Structure formats: structure tokens, C-alpha cells
């Protein structure tokens, strides 16, 4: 059975929903139409106003993946993670350390430090990062359970801008590689899965669709198609035509 393994936990779905848009309709659509089993959740939103609490819209069988959104350095990430633990969040946590309020790009150096701190504190950290092989290796060695590179700036819907770098991570890092931001179309999610990504995280692409439910369904199918194709194995890509009658046949 082909299942996604994150820190020892197994999932049937390889579509992960980001919850940054805080939209109940979106969450419902992703669970019902895209078969999401994991939804990320900023710890800073966990203990909030009761009548709009995001957790109210998420069924119990869905895994909440808390993140350290709001952290600007490793020590803040640790502090937020520990706060999440006190609030009842699980130990598996997505590290987000962002010092750039303009483009919301992750700080790889501080993220690496945060992984070291959190792993030694008993957490199972998943690393949101700029795709960089050298840093990803260090993150793996520091105890990351998955590497989560961004395909393009968050919310941009620009797709696999970092495709080549992500492919290198897939080829070289022995951890699940999960594309975490920038996917704008189902075809891009499919391509990421064909490349060998373990899963894709999507939020804005579905949130900003005209028909949210249809788009959620389209992503489910795309992720599944991409994964099936990856597992099936691709034929060779050739630059020249291969004649059915060999050109060298005359040599006898």
C-alpha cells in the first residue's frame, strides 16, 4: 500500500491543506472534495475566539499539523512550539521561520537552528524552506522528518518556479519532500508528484478559485494522477526519432 509516512505516521492522502486563508468553506471543500487528511494550523490561531475558531470546522479524524508561523528566529519558533504543546498540539510540527514580511520567504539559517532546538526538545519537525540542497542535508541530519521547499512565493500561484532545485532535493534527500507554497494549478501539483514529491500543500490556488469545491476535486485527481505516474515509471525521453526499422539495418 502506497502511503505517506511522516514521522512514523501514515496517511492515504498526499494532498495537504494549508489553512492560512482561515476560510471554513475552503476547509470543508478540501476535506470533502480533495480528501485532505492533514491540515496545517498556525499555533497562534489555536486558542482563539470560540465562535470562529478554525478547529470547529475540522473533523476529529483530520490530522492538524501545527506550525510556528509568526516566528522570526529559532528561539521564537521553540517558544511557539512549546506553547502549542501546552495547548494540546501534537509533537509533529512544521517549522516556519520568516523574517521577511514583504515576500514571506523562509529563513533557512534560522529554520535549521530551530530544527536542532525542536528535535532535541522531543518535537518531530518538518522544515518549510527555500530549496537548497546543502541546507536540506543539514536539516535532515538535525532531525527533520520532512523537507518542505517552496515552489514559488506563497500565495503567488506561480507554480514550480524552483523545479530544478526541488528535483535535486527529491533525488538526494532521503526524506519526504513536500512542495509547500506556490502551486497554482492542478497540473503543477501533478507535475510535482510526477517528479517524486511525497505530497503537495495547497491553499491559495483553491481559495481563490471561482468554484472552490470543483478546484479542490481537481487537485485531488491531479495529485493522484501524478503519484500514479511516478510509481508507474516513465519511459525514456529521446531527442531523436527511433525508427521502427533500424537505420543501421543495411549493415546486415
Amino acid at each position, binding site marked *: 500500500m502506497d502511503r505517506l509516512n511522516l514521522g512514523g505516521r501514515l496517511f492515504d492522502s498526499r494532498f495537504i491543506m494549508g489553512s492560512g*486563508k*482561515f476560510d471554513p468553506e475552503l476547509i470543508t471543500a478540501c476535506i470533502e472534495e480533495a480528501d485532505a487528511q492533514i491540515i496545517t494550523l498556525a499555533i*497562534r490561531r489555536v486558542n482563539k475566539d470560540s465562535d470562529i475558531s478554525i478547529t470547529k470546522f475540522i473533523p476529529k479524524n483530520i490530522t492538524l499539523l501545527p506550525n510556528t508561523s509568526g516566528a522570526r528566529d529559532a*528561539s521564537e519558533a521553540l517558544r511557539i512550539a512549546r*506553547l502549542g504543546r501546552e495547548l494540546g498540539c501534537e509533537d509533529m510540527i512544521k517549522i516556519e521561520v520568516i523574517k521577511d*514580511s*514583504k515576500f514571506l520567504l523562509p529563513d533557512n539559517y534560522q529554520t535549521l537552528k530551530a530544527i536542532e532546538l525542536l528535535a532535541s526538545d522531543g518535537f518531530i519537525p518538518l522544515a518549510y524552506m527555500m530549496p537548497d540542497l546543502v541546507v536540506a542535508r543539514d536539516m535532515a541530519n538535525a532531525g527533520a522528518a520532512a523537507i518542505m521547499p517552496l515552489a514559488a512565493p506563497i500565495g503567488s500561484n506561480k507554480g514550480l518556479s524552483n523545479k530544478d532545485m526541488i528535483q535535486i532535493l527529491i533525488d538526494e534527500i532521503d526524506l519526504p519532500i513536500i512542495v509547500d507554497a506556490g502551486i497554482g494549478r492542478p497540473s503543477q501539483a501533478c507535475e510535482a508528484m510526477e517528479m517524486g514529491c511525497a505530497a503537495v500543500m495547497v491553499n491559495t490556488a483553491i*481559495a*481563490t478559485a471561482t468554484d472552490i469545491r470543483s478546484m479542490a476535486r481537481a487537485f485531488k485527481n491531479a495529485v493522484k494522477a501524478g503519484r500514479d505516474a511516478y510509481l508507474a515509471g516513465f519511459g525514456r525521453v529521446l531527442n531523436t526519432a527511433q525508427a521502427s526499422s533500424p537505420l543501421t539495418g543495411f549493415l546486415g
Partner: protein
Amino acid sequence: MKFIQKTDPMEYLPSQERIDSDIMLKVLNAHKNVNFDEFNAFDVQKALDKDNLNLRDLQALLSPVAANFLEEMVAKSKAIKERYFGKNIYLFTPQYIANHCDNNCVYCGFKVGNDIKRAQLDENDIIKELKNIAKTGLKEILILTGESQTKTPLNYIANACKLAKEYFDIVGVEIYPLNSDEYAILHDNGVDFVTVFQETYNPIKYGKIHLYGNKRVFPYRFNAQERALIGGMRGVAFAALLGIDDWRKDAMATALHASLIQSKYPHAEISISVPRLRPIINNNKINPKDVTERALLQVIAAYRLFLPYANITLSSRESAYFRDNAMALGITKVSAGVSVGIGEHGGKDDKDKGDGQFEISDNRDVNQMKTAIKNAGLTPVMSDYIYTGI
């Protein structure tokens, strides 16, 4: 301390910290040299087609000719807002804890000499108000005073903020500008966001309308956001009071100021408000004048396109009708349950201790605002934040 009118508004007072920054020079140069009449439809269309706008694009979007593209601007503003903030609308309320002021600013209800009822909440009053506000479900509060270092010194404000932090996730201040070490004291007391309105970025007009008081010093006020960030704050808010001077120039300078701070301090969370002049007690002539709602929407859209990730706040200065319709079009934050008088959150017995700074237009309470937000197809959010104290 009083100043005669001829004091140079560009000169610092001895107690005021100077920082090494060229941002003011850049903003004032742009303010001085911009000519909005030189832009044409092509310039506006070009700006509308871009993802990352430069100063010239911003100016094009604020130009008179851009008014013909308002529908297109607003459509893009709405899309960008949804892309980066989803349907979220954050709610907060201001708490005025004092209305004493040492300044004479011709357009302001708090100015020295204006015959209004003055008041200052003591610790018990403040706690009583905080509890009442917290009961509404709000998680973000903005502590405000008039600008009086003598009546409301730093330790008084810091204590109020410390009290507020016990009831609220997010505490911001909108008070007189401070030195960076003073901002650090507020940060240690739970404050992470600082709002300073420059009022107008035209230094000549600024000098004419700020007759005396510390507020007369233009550069000290201008650099307040930078000092706040140096003092450890997470975010800073900017605004010109639209209608005081040329609104196009002031809006352009506000957005440029914010973007230059963003570039210099990438971690800073940037927020912009879009206040228009409101009538004040004893002066009904003060009004937004040429800043129509159409113009205000143009400013909001231009801000959103130029600074896609910035928060944009629309206050209860504006009508419920305008707020309800504009909320989805680029705004991220609105006030609710607003009382601008001193002590008005304290309950019936405490009403009307001190008069407000200006008249508000939208009197809806928190539940009404939440309903309005939901009716607009948006999601009310009380807090999206953790104070790390670092």
C-alpha cells in the same frame, strides 16, 4: 513647553533622539518632485499589469487619470487581498485613556486651548474598561492618548499597556513619538505595534498647522516608526490624514515611507491606515473636502497594489455603508465597538468623562461588525498573533 510659531519645524529638540536614516530625504524628494498631471492612461495600464510596482507606478495609480481605471484597480486590489489574506478581516478597537495634549494643531479636537472636557483614566478605570472591552470577544486593542508627555508620561502609558496585555493578545499604541529606548520599555510591557500618523508629508504645511508643542518637530515624528522597530517592535503603522493637504501627494508619501521601512527592516509588519479629516468639537468646518469616497477607494487600491502584503485599516471614521462595501476590496482590518471619548467603555456610570478627538461615523458594536463582515462574505478574525516578548 511652548514654541513661538517661527520655530523651525525641521529642527530637533535636545531630548529627541536622532537616528541614521536617509528615508525622510527620499520621501520628501519624491513628495516635492511628483507631478501627477504628467501621467497618462498608458502609465496606469502598465502599473496595473505589473506584480512588483515601483514608485512611478504608485504615482500613476494615484494620478487623476487613474480615476478612469478605478473599477480595474479595485478588482485587482480585491484579488491581491484575497491571495495573501484570504477572506480574513481582523477586528480591533481603540481605547482612549486620556485626552490631554500639549500641542496646538489647528485641525485636532485634542489641541491645547480647545474647550473640551479633559480626562485621564486611573488604573481602576483602565481595568474596568479593559474588562468590558474583553467581554465583547475582541483580542486586539489600541491604546491611545492625546500627546502630553507631562500629563501622560511614559510610565503611565507603559502601565496601561501592561494591564491591557492581561486581557488582550495584541496591544498597540497610538501615542506621542518616543525615543527607541522608550519604545523598548513599552515592548517589555507587552506592546508590539506602534501607530504614528504623519498627518501630512508636506513639511511647509506641517509647520503651518502644528503651531507649537513637540509635535511641531517634523523629522522626529517622521522617524518614529524606525525608532519603534529599533526598540524591538514587531510592526508599525503609517498614515497621512487625508484632506489636510494634497491627498495624492500625501498618499504617495505614506506608501513610499512604508515601503522604504519595509525594505530596511524586512521583518517589520507594515500597516497603513486611510483616515480622512473628520469634524471636531468646536469646529464644524473641518471636513474631508476633496477626499471623496471615490478618491479614498483609489487610495486604498493603490496602497494594496503597491504593498500587497501590508495590512490596510479602515476606521469607524467612515460610514457603515462605505465600510461594508469597501471591506472586501483590499482592507484587512476594521475597528469595532469604537468610543473615542474618555471612559466610554466603563459602563453607564462612567460615560463622558472626557470628550473625543473627532466624530465617528460607524457606531456598530463588535457583534454587529462581525455580522456585517460575514454578510460581506468575509471572515471576522480576532487575533492571528503570538507575543514572544523577544
